[in-house]
Structure formats: C-alpha cells, structure tokens
C-alpha cells in the first residue's frame, strides 16, 4: 500500500474487525494518519457498527410463535389430540407460559395482528392454518336449495300476475277455508295445499312437500301480503274475512263471477303449480292436465295448470 492509494473497503473492514496482521494494521494506521478522508470514513463505520441491537422477541409474540410451531410439528409428525398437546408443551414450556394447550387446535392460534388485520389468512407457513376448502363451501348446498325454492316462489308469483282473466284470484272456497277457524278470527290459509287442492289430494300433497307441494298463486305467504299490508293499502286487517262474507252471501260459496268454478276446476280453477322431480308425473294432483311445464335447475319440473 502506498500513500497515494487508499485501502480497499475490505481492508478497512478487516482493520476495524482486528482481522489484519500486525504489518497490515500498521500500514493502515499510518495511512489514516495522513488521509483525513479515509480516517473520517473509518470513524463513521466504527460508529455505525451495530452492537447489542438484538431485541428479544416480545413475550406474547414468542409464545404465539411457539404454539404455532408446536402445532406445525404435531401436524408434520402426525400427532393429534393428546400428542399435539404434548408437542405444545415441549415447544412452549406450558408451565412457564400458562397457555391452555387443550384449547389449541392443530392449526395453531391466530396471531393478534392477523386476527385484527387479515381475514383468516390461515396457513401453517404463516402459523395459523387456512380454513379447509370443503368447509368454505359448506353453505353451497343450502344456498342452492334456497335458490330453487326462491325460483319456485317467483314462478308462482309470475303466474298469478299473468292471470289473463284479471279475475279475483281467490276462490270463494279458499276464502271459506280461511275463515273456518273455530274462534271465528279471520286467518290466512295455513298452507297452499289447503287452498286449492281437492280435499282428497290434500294429505298426499302435504306429505310430498316440498318436492311435489302445490303452489298456488293466491297464497298470502307467496304474495307477500300481511294483515298490516292490507291495512296500509286502505283495507282492514280482516279484509279477507269481509271478502269471504261477501262470497258467502252468494249462498253457494262459489266465486260470484264464475259460479261454476267449483264444479269445473279445470275450466275455471285458478292456476296451480306443482314442483316435482318425477318426469312421469303428467297430471296435476287434482287430475288436471298441465298447461305449462317448466324445467328448473337440479332436475326439478314445475307443472302448472
């Protein structure tokens, strides 16, 4: 090394680390006495050397990590149940931490930060385990079933609105049924089956629900009308009872506009839809021939007549 040549960084590093032999150490020292730039550089590097900066891992985070590692160890080694608990004991030192190992599942705990910030980003590589894929889709089957029911309900509403005659959609028979309670209080029909299906078919239809339950257009439940809705529309809460009384005043219980509707349901009866999965079912429960057959998802047929 000559005075005109500055020592390399590597040499200065070794000088600071005391890794140079005596000869080279003296050469560098002599250079630094003559070269203020190098001397300043070495002083800065000496001052910037990090010592004692290692931070102990925070206790809570450390415990969390050890629990996650214990769970990962147990998972990796096929331990489960008591075995996993034992793994947690070893890695966490359960006596020291006071962690209730019995409450820890194999996926490990969710870190405090993760639980606040990340939405169940559970993966053993990150500590907590990801939710199994099949669990995340547990809701699919009920949702599909609900969707089919909603579709059927929507179809029945559509059929009611699509009634070409514009005539009252509730027959006198239905209204009589709705007012036939023992206490004399007007109530909506309890089921769609009791409204429109012939008496002989009622039990059969009811027991076959929901796959073959008749869906009628005038069901208060389907139409979404409640007694409060009636009142808000300017009627009374017993509006059905009033209608029924009007119908009863005809003496026959039949729809006054269509006096023969009871006798000729296939001509004057209101639309009835039946949902079924039986492709061989070609008639409605009351024996009528269906006017429309709608194919719904999941192999469901909606037969309307």
């Amino acid at each position, binding site marked *: 090394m000559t005075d005109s040549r500055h020592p*390399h*960084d*590597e040499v*200065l*590093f*070794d000088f*600071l680390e*005391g890794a140079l032999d005596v000869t080279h150490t003296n050469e560098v020292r002599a250079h630094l006495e003559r070269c203020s730039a190098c001397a300043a*550089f070495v*002083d*800065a*590097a*000496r*001052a*910037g*050397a*990090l*010592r*004692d*900066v*290692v*931070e*102990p*891992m*925070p*206790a*809570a*985070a*450390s415990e*969390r*990590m*050890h629990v*996650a*590692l*214990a769970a*990962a*160890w147990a998972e*990796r*080694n096929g331990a489960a149940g008591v075995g996993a608990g034992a*793994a947690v004991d*070893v*890695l966490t030192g359960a006596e020291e931490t006071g962690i209730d190992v019995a409450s820890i599942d194999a996926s490990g705990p969710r*870190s*405090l*930060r*993760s639980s606040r*910030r990340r939405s169940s980003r559970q993966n*053993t*590589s*990150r*500590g907590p385990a990801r939710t199994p894929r099949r669990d995340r889709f547990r809701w699919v089957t009920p949702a599909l079933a609900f969707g089919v029911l909603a579709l059927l309900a929507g179809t029945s509403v559509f059929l009611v609105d699509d009634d070409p005659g514009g005539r009252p959609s509730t027959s006198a028979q239905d209204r009589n049924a709705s007012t036939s309670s023992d206490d004399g209080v007007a109530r909506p029909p309890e089921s769609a089956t009791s409204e429109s299906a012939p008496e002989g078919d009622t039990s059969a239809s009811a027991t076959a629900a929901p796959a073959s339950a008749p869906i009628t257009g005038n069901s208060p439940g389907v139409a979404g009308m409640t007694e409060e809705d009636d009142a808000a529309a300017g009627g009374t809460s017993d509006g059905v009872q009033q209608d029924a009384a009007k119908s009863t005043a005809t003496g026959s219980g039949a729809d006054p506009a269509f006096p023969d509707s009871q006798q000729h349901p296939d001509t004057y009866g209101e639309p009835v839809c039946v949902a079924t999965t039986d492709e061989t079912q070609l008639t409605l429960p009351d024996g009528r021939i269906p006017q429309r057959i709608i194919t719904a998802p999941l192999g469901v047929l909606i037969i309307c007549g």
Partner: protein
Amino acid sequence: MTTEPDLELVRRAKAGDQDAFAVLVRRHEARVFTVAKGVVRSPEDAADVAQETFIAVLRHLVSFQETAQFTTWLHRIALRKAYDHVRRRVPEPVDPAGYAVESMDARDPDPQATHLARGDLLEALSGLDEGFRDAVLLVDVAGLGVDEAAAALGVAPGTVKSRVFRGRAALARQLGTHGHGGASK
C-alpha cells in the same frame, strides 16, 4: 440453555427430537426477529416474519444439508421472508402508542434505556440500500461471519466486507453522530 452446537440440534430435530428443535428456535428467535425488524420495521410484522421463518425451517429441516452453517440457512430464509412480507404488505396507519408496540417491550429488561437507541438504529438501517442493509443485518445483527453472510447473500466475502463497511458508515451519517449505537471499538 444448552450449549450444544446448532448442527447437533439439527440432527436431533431431524430424528424427531422436538426438544432439540425448541432449543434451536429459542436460541435464534431474537436475532431472527431483529433481522426481520431491520427490513419490515414494524415489530408486529417482524414477529410474523420470525414465525414464518421458523415454520419454513421446520418444513424444510429434512432437506437441510449439514455441511452448511445452520445460521446461514436460517437467516437467508429470514431475509427472504422479510422481503416477501414487505412486498405483500398493505400500508396501514401506524400507531406508535398502540397496543402492539407496547406489547413488544414486554421482555425488554430496560425498555426506557434501550428502546430509543435500537429504534433509531433500526429506523436508519431500513433506510439503507438493500445490499448494504442485508449485509449489515447479517453480520452486525444476526452475528454471522463474513463467509456465512456471503453464502447467505450469494456474493463474495469481499463484497460483504465492503457492504458492511459502507453500510456502517452510512448508518452513522444518517444518525448524525459518530457516537450513537453504543459500540465503538
């Protein structure tokens, strides 16, 4: 804590000795945490990175070649996990007085005396160029030798020396003092 060499603990852990693995983790968790903090800055994120690092170590322990230094391998994983963490991190407001930061001092024997200096140093460290920072973290924080750090970073030992030397000088300049850091030789 046992003074058993790392590689012996690794061998035992590979053979299914969970105690040996626990000792390894306890021995190195503080350095891994600090190295991670030098990159990700947040103590919470650093704790997450430390956990991810040791989980990765556990998963790949079988494939670890015992001809290498365990600490080299460990800190290479830690640095990789830390940078992965930075890349996928969603910026969020920092509350220095919040719960998490307070809880981070739970094991600090004298937080008042050491927190500021460490905080300043790690803050300054995170402002260095990546090459300098990694070298300083591995050598000065993780305590790796130059050859180990060089192996971890995939560079020549001379490069590590140069980066550490310049990184230290840059740190001192950023801190605006030559006496800060508490470790002059």
